[in-house]
Every structure is written in C-alpha cells, then in structure tokens.
C-alpha cells in the first residue's frame, strides 16, 4: 500500500469510527500537517452529512406496521386453533355419545376457530374501517343537514384567506384553504360560500361550503388521527390516494395528506372529478377537471 492509499484509508476509517483510540490520536496529529487528508476528510464529511440529513431513507407506512404486527400475532398464536380444536373436541365428547361423534364436521369447527382467532388479531383493522366509514357518514349527514338548512354557516365569505383565518384556533389542527390565484376575468367553476364548525368525535371538524347555481359541494376536514380515508374505489394521483364512493345519493371522495383527512361530498348529477375543482380551479391543472 503506497502512502496516498494509506492516507485515504485512514480518512475512511476515521469517518466510520473504526480507528482505535491510539490510531485516532495519531490521525488527528497527522491531519494538522497533511492538507491532502484534510481536504479529503472535508469532502467525505460533506457527503456523509448530506446522507445523514436524509435519514431514514424511506419510512414504512402505517399499513405496513399494522400488517407486520398482525402477521407476528398470527405467527405466534398459530397453534391456538389447534388448542381450541382440542378443547372443543373434549367438550363435545362430554356432551355427546361416541356414535354421534364421527358424524361431526371437525374441519368446520377448526375453520371457525381459526376465523375467530384471525378476527381477534385483525380487530385494529376492523376498527380502522369503522372509523373510515363513520367519517364518510359524518360528511354525508353534515352535507344533508346543510342542504336542509339545519346547519347554517357561521361565516359567509368568498375569500379563502378569510375562512382560513376564521378557522385558526377554532379547530385542533392547522388547516389552510388554497389561496385564490384567479385573474379578475376568470370565471370560477365553484364559488366558496362560507364555513362552519361541525362536531366530530370528541372534537371539531371544519366544513367549507361551495356553490354553483343550485349545486352545493361540502368539504369536511378533520385530523387524520380521528378520521381515515378508506374504502371505495382507490385512485392514486400525484402521490395521494383518493377514495371514491357513491353513498346515499351522493358522491364522496376522501383522502389524507399532511395529517388531515378530507371528505368532498357532491350530488350524483355532478361528476365526481368536477367537484375537485373546488380546490383545483385555483391551480394550473384545472383543465383536467372540467367536463369529463
């Protein structure tokens, strides 16, 4: 190994904390005199810093976490159906005569027991689905009540900035409507009408109402801790997953981003993608959501 190689060798070892105490001391002394090592170390350190700022490289999704926990549970308790099976067998032996026993569908019992165990394991998933369903239901009920005049708006304003300011401090999350960037001559597809607070769970959700002629569209926003976007037809666009469903005579689109879950409710005779314009009419891609 020539001397240059040995120098860069030590730079790497130093960077990776692989030098012993004595070697480290020697290397530090060497650094003071060797400009080559010093500049190489700086260069290497810059790369290392950049990589360390990017930790973790990727993050496992909550779904994957839930899958792993559920899979480990099933794996650990894989013998449980067997044990249940035996217990059921013993109970039945006590209550039935030996002749009847042979005709009994043992496989079915084992299957039911196994399904029961799976059911226990996947309770969190079931609870999650229930939470998602209840958010869609809340959005639908809110929209209907608003249409029936049972939920008057608390602020009437066409300005997204005003509504954003009105919600500040009233809802337990940071929610901003996209700022209007329409030019004075642009005709918005939908007009923002106003907003109000809606109780959801133990807390509040934000309701923003939009209108065009007789059409009304509701946007319900809640923290993703209490509301989940799930079910329906999934459409992935720009890194977000949108869940489309038709329920109770309305189109409902739900999605989650930046810790907030959104539900957009519109009447069935409005195309669901057209309702996206309540946000996208302020954006450059609005053409994609016009008549389809």
């Amino acid at each position: 190994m020539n001397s240059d190689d040995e120098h860069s060798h030590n730079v790497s070892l130093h960077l990776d904390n692989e030098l012993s105490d004595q070697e480290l001391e020697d290397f530090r002394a060497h650094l003071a005199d060797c400009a080559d090592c010093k500049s190489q170390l700086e260069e290497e350190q810059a790369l290392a810093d950049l990589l360390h700022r990017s930790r973790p490289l990727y993050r496992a999704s909550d779904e994957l976490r839930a899958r792993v926990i559920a899979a480990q549970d099933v794996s650990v308790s894989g013998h449980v159906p067997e044990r249940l099976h035996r217990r059921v067998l013993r109970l039945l032996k006590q209550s039935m005569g030996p002749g009847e026993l042979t005709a009994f569908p043992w496989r079915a019992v084992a299957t039911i027991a196994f399904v029961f165990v799976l059911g226990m394991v996947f309770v969190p998933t079931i609870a999650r689905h229930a939470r998602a369903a209840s958010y869609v239901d809340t959005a639908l009920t809110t929209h209907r009540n608003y249409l029936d005049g049972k939920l008057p708006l608390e602020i009437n304003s066409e300005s997204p900035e005003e509504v954003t300011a009105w919600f500040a401090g009233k809802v337990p999350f940071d929610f901003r409507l996209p700022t209007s960037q329409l030019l004075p001559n642009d005709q918005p597809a939908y007009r923002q009408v106003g907003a109000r607070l809606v109780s959801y769970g133990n807390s509040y959700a934000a309701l923003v109402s939009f209108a065009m002629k007789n059409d009304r569209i509701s946007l319900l926003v809640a923290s993703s801790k209490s509301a989940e976007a799930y079910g329906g037809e999934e459409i992935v666009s720009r890194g977000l997953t949108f869940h489309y469903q038709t329920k109770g005579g309305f189109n409902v689109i739900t999605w989650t981003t930046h810790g907030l879950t959104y539900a957009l409710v519109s009447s069935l005779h409005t195309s669901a993608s057209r309702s996206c314009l309540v946000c996208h009419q302020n954006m450059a891609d609005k053409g994609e959501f016009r008549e389809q």
Partner: protein
Amino acid sequence: MSLTPEGSPVVEAAAGIEHIDGLFSYALVLTRNRSEAEDLVQETYVRAIRAMGSLRIGSNVKGWLFTILRNIWFNQLRHRRTAKVVAMDGEENAVDFADTAKDPYAFYVSKMEHQQVREAIQRLPADFREVILLREFEELSYQEIATILDCPAGTVMSRLARARTKLRTLLSAAFKTSDFARKEVME
C-alpha cells in the same frame, strides 16, 4: 425480545418493530419495488418471531433482522433468476411532515434534497446500494456489515469507498442545489 425476572423469554407482539424503517429502506434498495419491499419486511418479521427462541441473549438483534431480510431476498432471486425492476411512485408520502411544517420553504428544500439522495442511491449498482444503506443510514460497523453480507470486513471497506465515490458524482448536482438553497433560506 425481553426477559422476565424469572429469566424466561417473553416475545412481544411487535418484536423488533423499532427497526421497521431501516428494514423497509433496506428492502427498497434491494428490490426497488414498493410492494415487494413491503412483503419482504413482513416475511422478515414473521421468520424472526418464529426463530426468536434460537436467538441468544445479548445477540445483535438488529444485524440479525437485516441478515434474515437479505437471505429471504436472495433466495427469492435465485428462484426467479432475474429481479423485476419497477419504477417507484408516490414517494412523497413517505416524508415526515410533522417537524418541518413551520418553515415551508426550508421543508421544500430538504424534501428536494431527500428526493435527490434517494434517486442517486437507487441509481447505484445493487452491491453499492446496500453497503451505503447499512453504513450511512443504519450506522452498522464494518464487521456487522461483513456478517450480513457474508464477506470479509476488508471487502466492505473497499466496496464502501467505491460506492461513496460513485455516489458523490451522482450527487454533485444535489450538492450545488442544496448549498444554494440553504444560503437563500438564511438570508
């Protein structure tokens, strides 16, 4: 895995779950495919929990999990000979927004930088990708990496040096952008 006062091992429901981001990242640099990576992580945890009994107290659980993941992947590869390479999408979802929401501009810059780091790493050859991930992101020692890769520590070191040189070339653009952006944020 932990021990009760009596000394009998207790298997927790989510054993080793603290390593899930690291394992998922490792799976993604090996497979370059999100759904394959997720399946690989799940399979790793399932195998790990079954084999927990054979693990000695004081063993390196982290290194052991990475070894299991790698073995499963290379076994699968052997069975199908060629790995499919599928482009990844929706990566922005994986970024943590929580602590950066207060300074959207700085956040935007750091997100761009993160994205460039990911792209550069994914462009490296497979043996460079994994050695970078294990050293720079998982902070494993040469010896720990050597155990996972089943090769001498000297090989780890020379491969790491070549991987860094290549990565530096790929990232030179990102360096310029981020230095520039950081300066702007401070001004």
